[in-house]
């Protein structure tokens, strides 16, 4: 698998605003890549630059080893599916699907054959001659995807395509999109702000914030080894818990403890890693709610917490708690569905040691 698409120092500036800052990426042939990030992080701008609708301020876009910066959108071998589908309202479904072929001046009969074939694949055969203004969002989306598939580009770009659908349609379409990509075998770049979507679809995820690349890795790696606080906090169905803490040396061991001294953790085995990274004084313990468990008194690293709220979700429950002496912060843990503690109860919890992340508060880098 070679490199299909390379972004080199890609930058886009709008007046005072730096929308995309020095983006460097290599996307492999046939990969399903997700651009993930909050609104305004630059992912749509990047997509527009890739499709040719925006010109980069700096940097290069290289497709199949050819620089395509100065090619207009229609000459690039790239397809784009818009968030609002952008179906041509003055044409019916057939004409929408046929558009790219007519643009290439393909013969009428050939167009007919191809359109009818693809319509079958997307279950559009029954509505080929329908007025597009009468279609549901689900139908419109299939037309949007269908006409791009007919265009047969080597790279597909999708701009939050599932955003306009209801929750259940979204989950169905997710699977269908993944299957489609496998069938076509083409490279896909998918933009979304929904981290669950990205995690479930992508081979690799590009996480962006404020125009900058935060991390580019497989979903598993991003989940287990986030490289900075933003990524750590962004990924995961429930946000990660961040607890301010400090280090001290005690009896030859490296101890991590929080401000109110409610817990102490021996992290000596990570000494090498921490020392070589030269952490600042402000440290932060990161632990996902799913890695916080109930504990018994006997366990050394347990600590006492007060329960503030419980959410019963069916498959599991989410317990909100506070460490001793804390207020105004929400910490979460997940518990099995049978466990339903009461508010204001005090229970013991522990953090699963292998799943602890230590972050430098100031620099935002994850140390463990």
């Amino acid at each position: 698998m070679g490199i299909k698409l390379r972004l080199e120092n890609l930058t886009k500036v709008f007046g005072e605003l730096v929308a995309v800052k020095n983006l460097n990426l290599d996307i492999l042939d046939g990969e399903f890549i997700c651009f993930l990030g909050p609104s305004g992080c630059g992912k749509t701008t990047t997509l527009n630059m890739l499709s040719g609708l925006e010109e980069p301020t700096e940097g290069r876009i290289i497709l199949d080893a050819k620089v395509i910066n100065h090619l207009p959108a229609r000459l690039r071998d790239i397809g784009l599916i818009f968030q609002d589908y952008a179906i041509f309202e003055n044409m019916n479904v057939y004409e929408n699907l046929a558009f790219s072929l007519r643009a290439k001046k393909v013969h009428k009969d050939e167009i007919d054959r191809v359109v009818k074939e693809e319509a079958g694949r997307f279950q559009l055969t029954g509505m080929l001659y329908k007025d597009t203004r009468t279609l549901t969002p689900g139908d419109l989306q299939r037309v949007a995807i269908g006409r791009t598939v007919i265009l047969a580009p080597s790279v597909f770009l999708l701009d939050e395509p599932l955003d306009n659908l209801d929750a259940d349609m979204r989950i169905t379409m997710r699977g269908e999109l993944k299957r489609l990509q496998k069938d076509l075998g083409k490279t896909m770049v998918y933009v979304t702000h929904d981290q669950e979507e990205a995690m479930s679809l992508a081979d690799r995820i590009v996480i962006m914030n404020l125009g900058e690349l935060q991390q580019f890795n497989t979903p598993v790696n991003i989940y287990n080894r986030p490289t900075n606080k933003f990524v750590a906090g962004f990924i995961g169905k429930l946000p990660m818990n961040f607890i301010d803490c400090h280090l001290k040396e005690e009896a030859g061991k490296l101890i991590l403890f929080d401000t109110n001294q409610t817990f102490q953790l021996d992290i000596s085995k990570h000494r090498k890693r921490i020392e070589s990274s030269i952490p600042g004084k402000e440290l932060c313990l990161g632990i996902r709610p799913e890695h916080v468990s109930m504990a018994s008194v006997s366990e050394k690293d347990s600590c006492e917490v007060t329960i503030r709220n419980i959410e019963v979700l069916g498959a599991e429950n989410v317990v909100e708690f506070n460490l001793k002496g804390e207020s105004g912060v929400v910490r979460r843990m997940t518990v099995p569905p049978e466990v339903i503690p009461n508010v204001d109860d005090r229970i013991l919890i522990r953090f699963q040691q292998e799943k602890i992340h230590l972050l430098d508060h100031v620099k935002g880098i994850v140390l463990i």
Partner: protein
Amino acid sequence: MENPSTAVSMELTKKEGLLERLGKWMPLSLSLIMPVEVILLFLLIVPSFISIWLSLVSWQPTFGIGIFQAKFIGLKNFIDLFTEPRFLWAFLRTFYITGVTVSLEFLIGLGLAVLVYKPFPGRTFFTLILILPMMFPPLVVGNNFYMLFFAEGPINALIGYVLGGPFKFDWLSSPSYAIYPIMIAEIWQWYPLMFLIMISGLRGLPPNQLRAAEVLGGSPWQIFWRIKLPQLKPIILIAIVIRTMEIIKMFDVVYIMTRGGPGTLTETISIYMYKIGLKNFRFSYISAGAWIVLIASVIIFTYLLKPLLYKVEKFEEKIEEGAEE
């Protein structure tokens, strides 16, 4: 010491102004529209009925009798009109001028709007200047072009430069050609309206559809014919209908430039009716004529404009097929 209940009742009465009391026997919605109704009643409805009556009798102010004492002659006025060549010619001429002028205004307006679509240096300035003609009253436009097409005037001088020799053609007295300066004057005055409407239309097109078309490989030409123009159809239709509605009534320009002459060769409907109605005082006759014009306009809109739009579609398809070869 105030009794709370009287305070409340005083509050309630305060809100009952004059119109509220009026509202007691007429809902507000009706009373608001009353003035317009009254005005239209006297300026439109009553005159219409009088006009119908006049068209069915034989009456002129010079007869010296009241109009309701006139002799009823049924459709005779209408028949007379249909057999009056001068009327028929005025009729045809008006629609001919309308057709040509509106088409050219539309094409120019659309062309300019397309040219102006993407920015270029001085775009705002030029756009403002290009809409200037629309701000001129028709009478002044007529007067202006009258001077321009004067036999020894600037237009002829310019033609003379091009031809290499003096060109002193008296346009406005020419039987075959007097109509052209009139049309040029109308087009000059009203193309800006089409221009503005087309700009408005183009700006209102959904941008993502146009971008999608680009990404799907559409060339600017293809995008224009297959997406922009079809989506502009409703606006184009409005523009053409409204323009046609107004130009059928055209009077000022023709009046000042030729008075309908030479002879009767540039007479439009309005001029004809003005002359016969107000100079020859044939009120009944002209009232009938006005109704014929109105009915004809309605028929034209319903039966000609729609098929026209259909033809435009076919024409577009031919253009694309031509471009594909």
